[in-house]
Each structure stands twice: as C-alpha cells, then as structure tokens.
C-alpha cells in the first residue's frame, strides 16, 4: 500500500492531494478505515492519523466503523422519494431484516439511505456497491437481495 500511495502522490503538485485516493485504497483493503488502516495511510502520506481520520469523517463514502461486505444504498432524496423511494427502502429493510443504517447479523450487507444519487429521472435509484440500478420498484427488491446474497 505504501508504494501504491507514493505513485498516486506523484500525480499531484502537493502530496496531500492524494489523501482521498489513499483512503479509498485502504478502505478497499480493510473493508473500513480501521485505526491501523488510518495509521498506515498517514505513514504513507507523511501526515498524522488524526488528520486522515478528520478528512475521512467529512465524506460519506468512508466508513469509520465496520460495515458489511456489500453495501446497498437507496436514494431517498426528493425526486426518488416522490416516486416511492420509501417503499423501496422499506422493502429492503423487510427483506434484509435490518433498518437503514444497519448491517445484517452475518456481516454481509449494510443498508443505508443515500442523498441524491444523480439518477432522479429514473427513480428510485439503488446502488449496490456503487453500481446503480435504476429504476427500482419495491417488487424488484427480493431479487436484488438474492443477487447480493449470492455474491452477484
């Protein structure tokens, strides 16, 4: 990871610019930004872990607590909400047996609501590991959950 981050650093006039990509790499490797992962990033960037954590905590896509292996996100901003996002979210809650913001007991899936995903014309937008499915209706949910559980 150290070397990988050095390469990214070289793309920018100032090395600190590499912090977001570096955090992304660490998160990919460890699943979430564990204290040790943050220490590793900090070392590679010559920053402090506190700085890295401070930056990470500003952005929604970084996880500072454990999450499931798969991430299901449902946009509930107004365009999607107007066409039934809440029903889609609730279908996921039902199907997964968890509330939005939670992770299944087996640690496989985390479900969360998302601010506008940028697919408003094709609501409701659901992102599975950041791959968009649009539009999704409540009746599509069981199949998506099955697919996620099956590793698709």
């Amino acid at each position, binding site marked *: 990871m150290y070397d990988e981050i050095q390469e990214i650093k070289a*793309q*920018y*006039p*100032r*090395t*600190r*610019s*590499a*912090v*977001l*990509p570096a*955090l*992304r790499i660490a998160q990919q490797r460890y699943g979430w930004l564990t204290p040790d992962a943050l220490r590793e990033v900090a070392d590679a960037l010559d920053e402090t872990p506190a700085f890295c954590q*401070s*930056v990470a*905590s*500003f*952005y*929604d*896509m*970084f996880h*500072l*607590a454990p999450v499931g292996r798969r991430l299901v996100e449902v946009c*509930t*901003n*107004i*365009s999607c*909400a*107007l*066409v*039934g*996002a*809440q029903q889609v*979210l609730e279908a996921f809650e039902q199907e997964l047996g968890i509330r*939005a*913001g939670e992770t299944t007991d087996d640690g496989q899936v985390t479900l*969360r*609501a*998302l*601010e*506008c*995903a*940028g*697919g*408003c*014309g*094709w*609501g409701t937008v659901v*992102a599975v590991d*950041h*791959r*968009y499915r649009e539009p999704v209706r409540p009746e599509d949910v069981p199949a998506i959950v099955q697919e996620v559980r099956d590793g698709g």
Partner: protein
Amino acid sequence: MAASEIVLAGAADRDLTQIDAYREVGGYATLDRARGMGPQAVLDELLTADIKGRGGAGFPMGRKASFIPKPGQNPNPTYLTVNADESEPGTFKDREIMLRVPHRLIEGCLITAHAIGSRNVFIYIRGEYLREFEIIRAALEQAHGAGLMGDVTIVLHRGAGAYICGEETALLESLEGERGQPRTKPPFPAIAGLYASPTLINNVETIATVPAIVEHGGAWYADQGTEGSRGTRVFSLSGNVRRGGNYELELGTTLRDLIYHHGGGLPGSRRIKAIIPGGSSVPVLTADDIDTPLTFEAMADKGTFLGSGAVIVIDDRCCMVQLGLRVAQFYMHESCGKCTPCREGTRWMVQILRKIEDGRAEQAELDLLLDVCDRILGKCLCPLGDAAAMPIASYVDKFRAEFQAHIDAGGCPYKGESSLERVFAPVDQHTHHPTVEVPA
C-alpha cells in the same frame, strides 16, 4: 429536439464513448483547429458565445476564463478544474454527458486548457459516480493513445461523498486533500485557486459545450436560445412525470413543453402542484407558472433560478411540509459545519419543520421558521445556507395554507397519504461518532 442537441449531439445513434465513433462525428477536429488558433482567439469565441455556466450560478464562462492571468502575469502554473461533482438533488445531466459523450468533455478540457494556457487539468468527479469514472478513465486512455494530449495532463480525481464539494472553493480544498470546506472569497479562484494558483473552474456541461462553440463559432452559438440565455441546456426532468430523463433543449423552451411534450406529462390523473425549476436549492414555482420559459431571465422574474437545470415536478399528493422537511434534512446533512448560520440554522430548521409536520407546533413557530430562514439568508460563508433557506421560505410563502393546516389540525392533513410520508433521510442514520445526538 435532436436538431438542437449540441452537447449530446450524435449520441442517440452511436456509441460515442469510443474514440473512433467520436471522430466519425467530427470529434477532436476542433481541438486541432483550436490549437492552431491563438489562445486569445479561442477566448474570443467563448466571449462571443456568451455561454453562462451550467453548474448553477450562471456566470458567463468566457468572462471567467478572461480573468485568468495571461502567461507571465503570474509566476504560478494555471489550472483548469472541471466540476463533475454533480450532487444537487434533481440533477443528473453531467452524469449523462460523461456516460455518453466523454470525449466531448475531454476535447472541451483540452481546448479550454489551451485557451487559458494551462497544462494541468483536474476533473473532480463525484465519488458515487463509479461507472462514469470508469468511462472517463477509458476515454482518457484512448485520447492518450491517440496522442491528443499534447503537453496537457488530465487527472481524474474522485470525490468521496460530500455535496458541498460541488461548491467551487470547497472542491479546491477537497482536491488539495482537505476537508471540503469552502473558502472565503476574495481571492477568487481565477487569481488564487488550486494550490494558490490561477484556476478556472467550470461545470462538465459548460466544458462539453466548448468544442461546438469553437467549431461553429461563438456567433453561431449565441444565435440559439434567448438574449439572456444563449444556446441549449441539458435539462434533467424528474419527479412525478411519465418520462423522466435528460433533454437537451434550446433555452427558452417552456416548462410546459418540457414537462408535457418531452416528459409525457404526469402519470395517472395527477395534477401539478409545484415545480422546482433548477434543483432543490431554488425557490419553488406553482402550477400557474407552467408557461414560464426556461431561461435565466424568466426565472429571475419569477423570483427563482434556473440553477442546474433540474426540473422536479411535484404532484398534488405531496405534502409541502414533508417536502420542506426532506429538503432541509438534505442541507443539514450536507452543511460542511464551517460557518455558524448554516451549521446551526439548518439543524434548527429541521427541528421546527419536524414539529410542524408532527402537528406539535404553535402558531409562532411558523413565523420562527421564516425568521430562521431570514437569519441564514445572506449571512453564510458560501451559498449552501441560502440554498437551504430560500426553498423552504418559498414553500411557506406559496403554500402557507398547508403549513397553517398542520398547526390548526394538529397533524398532517394528508393523513399518511402523502407521497413523501415517513421518508427516511440519511441524516437520521449515520454518524461517525456515537456520542453525537441527531435531532429528535
């Protein structure tokens, strides 16, 4: 329609993500021409075209580019930064541009870089846009392979989930590796932007328009649209319409045309209750405004903005208090926390709106809500606070009776039938820290 397409031209029947296909429709030819012209000549075309920025603020692009110091006037390098952080609720046009005409964006970058004497381009792309990132990256590789880059490097920089990073100075902070909190202006980015160097920041759509302007000439471009709003825009249509999606139309097209002709009208027998004409940050219009042309000036006449060109249609099932609450929750979630009125005010707005929606509010609290909006308005460090206060104030203004009904009846008059009933907002779920309390 298709005839008026400039940004998305040619993408309907071809896969323009491939460089060969893009070249078949004349792609990258303009780049060669532009490089043969002096930078000032390119700038002049942009000035003549009089294109206003497509990101939301609507500042004339040519003028902004002319603020960039000329070579020798500033010892620092000049940067071009493309704002691809598209996150304004209702907006999804930049995404479509990146997915379907990535090379037009790249060509626009290279021409603009030439015009302002920049050799370093950064495209700051929204973190959630994974496929778009992959497509741009692939397109960049093709452009590289084709030897089109000259001495310019384009770095594709991914965001990580923060609406505020769409604000240009927050974007620069984020790109520099900081928390994405806006800076005070002046200095403006054109003088001291990225790494304290002269920086031009433009929206994806703005940049993707540049090749056509240079190809056909600024005058040609300025001929389209209206005097105050030249050219076309890719409008994002969403909400309660049959055919949501992006429509590139000449500016001046009416809302009616967009919603009914292109969007197929509302599903079922629903009626329009409200229209948000430029993304969630702008004051709302009502059904009576349906014939308003989609131009900067017409929207200004109506006390609102064309913003990011995102038109959200709201039908009569929607409770406006719930809408206000959901919009306020969004801005609370996205407030960067730097300045006081925005950080504290958005949270307070959410609390008051929730109370109104729940039917627990007293009469005075409706006025308090407006006063809080007023106390945010015009006092924040960046426009995000205004973006929260303006729409909410407009909901109360235009639909006061509905707010009043919540107070009078001690509850929501929609009795659970509103389309936004119970809608769950991210602000209620996530926190990185267990001791933070989220609002009741």
